[in-house]
């Protein structure tokens, strides 16, 4: 019997390892031979641990959420397809069937550390094509795809590639930003744990295109499972020749080192990340110079988010115009959105840009986990806007969000039910900024502390009108006087909370 159980953090954190132990023990007691395959996660986190059984002929049946206590009964029922925990063929579950899985096509299906399985399921096709068309045409494909950075700033990737390619230097670098600090996001983590060779292939292609021979992956230390899987994947890639003097048969040399962060949110900002990667305090650098021209050790450096780099192999394999056909307007391709917080069906939803927020929250998410009405969602991490239900018909694309001064960011959507207090959330935005500020500019370092004090006064009901005025002024100072988006965009959650949920800021006065 072949059994698939995720090794993904979202599965392990709710008992997947213990379920594996129970399956092995139960099978042993029954003298049934089992082969356990640890996969990534399908991204249906409310069903984790999701156990899949391979039937004769290769078809899979999914069961979840499986607890240790369920294992015996599942064996007794011979894993029948009508068991209460059964979901049938996982690929046919509406949550997955309704998606456009391109980047996450393999995630949750194959053994992430089987190089053979990676190659058999379409892996390396992008690198082969890149090697055959050469650097210039590879960059053209990325240009044509319209791919924009998935780390938050949504800058057109092709332009960045051209800049790094055009820079003259004896050494250039590819740096993968795997710092994924935004609350409500886990797509980087999932792909690192579920399909690490995809990232490695993406980085090799990028190296070949811009003329870099060395790559670094900057991984946050809060991701121990990703660290282990990625570390093993890099060793295998070395051994299999995907990395090395003739990386993946491309004719170009490329190597990757894994580097661990040390618990600082600001190190997700690319220049802070580069400082940190050089072993220093993660203080933000002034731009210019752009990292593309003077990045790591002062050398031209292509900094990309994990998901941006993971989109590259399919862009090359299928062509830039294929990728461009997904999405709307200047938001091309697919985006792995992440449904998080108080949501019934939380997890990863990779779809082409153009779906409404409503569809994501209700059609995929199924509303709140608590069953209470949705009060707000925060889109795009701690620097993202709080959005009320009256705006849920908004399309999830860069332009629509840009128009209301918000961002799609890294695609995280955090759902809050009616128990949420948006004044508390506004205060938290300042507290987080105060905690994580790199300290370089006063509006961010001091303003965030002031902002938290002002919010505390508002929450306690003292001089609310005056303090709201003070709050708005303070936000203006932070927006105008901050070097990076940490200080510059902390006002986004604060002011959106104030704009859409003013009653929460006056709760005490109104005697609620």
């Amino acid at each position, binding site marked *: 019997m072949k059994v698939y159980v995720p090794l993904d953090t979202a599965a392990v954190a709710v008992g997947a390892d213990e379920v594996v132990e129970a399956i092995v023990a139960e099978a042993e007691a029954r003298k049934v031979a089992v082969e356990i395959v640890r996969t990534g996660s399908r991204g249906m986190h409310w069903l984790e641990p999701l156990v899949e059984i391979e039937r004769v002929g290769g078809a899979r049946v999914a069961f979840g959420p499986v607890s240790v206590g369920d294992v015996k009964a599942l064996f007794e029922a011979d894993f029948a397809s009508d068991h209460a925990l059964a979901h049938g063929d996982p690929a046919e579950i509406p949550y997955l069937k309704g998606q456009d899985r391109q980047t996450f096509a393999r995630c949750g299906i194959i053994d992430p550390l089987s190089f053979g399985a990676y190659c058999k399921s379409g892996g390396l096709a992008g690198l082969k094509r890149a090697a055959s068309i050469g650097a210039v045409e590879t960059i053209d494909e990325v240009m044509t795809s319209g791919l924009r950075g998935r780390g938050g700033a949504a800058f057109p990737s092709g332009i960045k590639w051209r800049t790094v390619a055009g820079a003259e230097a004896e050494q250039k670098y590819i740096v993968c930003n795997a710092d994924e600090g935004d609350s409500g996001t886990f797509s980087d983590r999932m792909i690192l744990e579920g399909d690490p060779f995809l990232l490695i292939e993406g980085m090799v292609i990028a190296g070949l295109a811009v003329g870099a021979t060395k790559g670094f992956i900057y991984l946050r230390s809060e991701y121990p499972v990703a660290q282990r899987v990625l570390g093993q994947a890099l060793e295998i890639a070395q051994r299999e020749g995907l990395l090395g003097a003739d990386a993946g048969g491309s004719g170009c040399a490329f190597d990757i080192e894994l580097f661990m962060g040390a618990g600082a949110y600001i190190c997700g900002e690319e220049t802070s990340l580069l400082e940190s990667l050089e072993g220093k305090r993660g203080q933000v650098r002034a731009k210019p110079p752009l990292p593309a021209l003077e990045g790591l050790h002062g050398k031209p450096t292509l900094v990309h988010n994990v998901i941006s780099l993971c989109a590259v192999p399919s862009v090359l394999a299928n062509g830039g115009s294929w990728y461009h056909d997904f999405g709307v307007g200047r938001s091309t391709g697919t985006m792995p959105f992440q449904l998080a*917080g*108080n949501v019934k069906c939380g997890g990863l939803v990779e779809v082409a840009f153009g779906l409404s927020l409503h569809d994501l929250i209700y059609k995929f998410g199924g509303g709140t986990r608590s069953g209470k009405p949705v009060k707000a969602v925060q889109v795009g991490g701690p620097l993202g806007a709080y959005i009320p239900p009256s705006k849920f018909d908004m399309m999830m694309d860069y332009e629509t969000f840009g128009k209301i001064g918000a961002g799609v960011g890294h695609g995280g959507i955090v759902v809050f039910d009616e128990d949420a207090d948006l004044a508390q959330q506004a205060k*938290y935005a300042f507290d987080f900024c105060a905690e994580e500020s790199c300290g370089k500019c006063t509006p961010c370092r001091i303003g965030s502390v002031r902002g938290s004090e002002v919010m505390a006064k508002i929450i306690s009901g003292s001089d609310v009108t005056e303090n709201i005025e003070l709050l708005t002024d303070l936000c203006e100072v932070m927006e105008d006087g901050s070097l990076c988006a940490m200080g510059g965009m902390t006002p986004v959650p604060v002011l959106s909370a104030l704009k859409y949920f003013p009653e929460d800021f006056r709760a005490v006065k109104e005697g609620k």
Partner: protein
Amino acid sequence: MSSATEALITPFVGQTGGLLRALHALQAGVGYIDASAIPVIADVFNLTKAEVKGVVSFYSDFRRAPAGKHSIKICQAEACQAVGGRSLTDKALRALDLSFGETDSAGAVTIEPVYCLGLCASGPAAMVDGKLRGRLDPNLFADELVQLQKDGAK
């Protein structure tokens, strides 16, 4: 101390980001970055003591005092707040009679905040001795931590 410190950190000299790698290795080996290690590190990496101190203090991962036998980190970020992270935190701190950043007098547990563990659809979340935990029940978790504290004090 100094020769043990040197042995742990010297392999990273000359590497990209060597100082951070060395600090990770030192903490993994010794449990924290002792004040007495600062001049040694400065010497080995050819930096000033102030520079080394500046790096150590910038990153929340690096401890400057020994931690308890068990390490508890509870997620404070938005997605966990939305599913009762604040109550999980309050109950845990009350049950242990500690504030964030503190270690109990018996040296059994250290409890700290953490900002997102990538378990945002499986919150509220925490990390206990490096192991990730999701969908935590505040009362059961508080009981578990009290037990951990008792065991750790033995």
